[in-house]
């Protein structure tokens, strides 16, 4: 079992590696195309800004590598948003794996603190990614932009507006929250991903 974490100009990559180590797995952090293609599992993490991250991925031709992957891929936070079609964050065209659109939280929906920082629920769970996880479990979120609800939604949550806490299409999975920082719930989700 070989897991890789895609290395790019986004924060929080170490945290994902340490979380995997806590559940007894190792991973390589790499931007090497061949190593990514040959991995059994690929994690695409990220904390950062969408357009800067997309430009970086394109400059390293990682954008094409990611969309062509056939093994299970897990996008986390910005990683998940970049797997969507489009992000309002600096009008960025993203990877287009998920059809859902990424928008900014708005005071129009009664949200007066942006980013959302803290523990919120995951609801309407429908994926093996959530095996052993109870409805309305708490996960740790830090984000100003959210993916809409859509046909690829496999978990929802609510912050002023209902949106996708997790997405799934074919071999691609994405979670808006940070499983690497979500205590036992997050560790179970990472274990489930590794077991896919």
């Amino acid at each position, binding site marked *: 079992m070989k897991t890789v974490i895609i290395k790019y100009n986004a924060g929080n990559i170490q945290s994902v590696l340490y979380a995997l180590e806590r559940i007894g797995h190792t991973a390589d952090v790499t931007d090497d195309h061949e190593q990514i293609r040959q991995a059994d599992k690929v994690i695409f993490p990220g904390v*950062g800004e969408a357009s800067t991250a997309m430009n970086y991925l394109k400059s390293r031709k990682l954008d094409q590598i990611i969309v062509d992957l056939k093994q299970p891929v897990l996008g986390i936070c910005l990683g998940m948003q970049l797997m969507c079609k489009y992000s309002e964050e600096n009008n960025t065209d993203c990877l287009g794996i998920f059809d859902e659109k990424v928008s900014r939280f708005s005071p129009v929906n009664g949200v007066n603190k942006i980013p959302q920082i803290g523990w919120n629920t995951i609801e309407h769970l429908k994926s093996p990614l959530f095996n052993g996880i109870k409805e309305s479990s708490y996960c*740790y979120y830090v984000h100003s932009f959210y993916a809409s609800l859509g046909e690829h939604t496999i978990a929802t949550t609510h912050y002023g507006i209902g949106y996708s806490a997790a997405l799934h299409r074919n071999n691609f999975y994405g979670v808006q929250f940070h499983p690497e920082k979500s205590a036992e719930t997050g560790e179970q989700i990472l274990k489930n991903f590794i077991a896919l």
Partner: protein
Amino acid sequence: MLTKRIIPCLDIKDGRTVKGVNFEQIRDAGDPVELASIYAKEGADELVFLDITATNEKRKTLSELVNKIAHQINIPFTVGGGINSVEDVQVLLKNGADKISVNTAAFKKPDLINELALEFGSQCVVLAIDTKQEADGKWYVYLNGGKVKTDTLCFDWAREAVDRGVGEILLTSMNNDGTKKGFALDITKQLAGSLPVPIIASGGAGSKEDFADVFQQAQADAALAASIFHFKEIAIPELKKYLSEQQIPVRL
């Protein structure tokens, strides 16, 4: 629903946790990683580590400690104390800190906030403010761990810092700190009610009711405390159960 956060704070000196009573009788309280693990298991929502040595020669000790914590702890944590450059922050984040907090250096050199927000994102930049209500009834900013008074009002500095890009404010009332008579509700409410970032209230926690008050009356997004957790006066599970019974959303 987004929950209110309970945040134990650990003071760190030379890589060890210290406990003090009113800044005196500081004594060793053991391994910060062990204590942090216990808090995380008990249901703490985040942790704050405040390095009270924070001299240049101790920086390496701190970054090594941060790395150990990042390996062990499965919840987010913030590191603060003596941070005054992009390089300081880089080292801490690289070693696995989720957020950093700045205080005196940011006040003296406000562009630091813009630089940090641009480089690392607002979500990992916490502004710590130590504030004191003077005889004129107004809340002023204090620096250097509360030793140096400024003429700047707490609210004005907080608003400027938000405009410059801080993602959260850790607000400590010096009037309340150490009293165990409750948080400073008025200044907390003033910030929480009008600034578009989360406010972490600190200083004065003595009872479970104090936490309920700061969430319900002052609209704080999170509450931080040290001694009541260290001295086991209030256990985190018991506190969260109480808050839940008061219809305050918490992670149980």
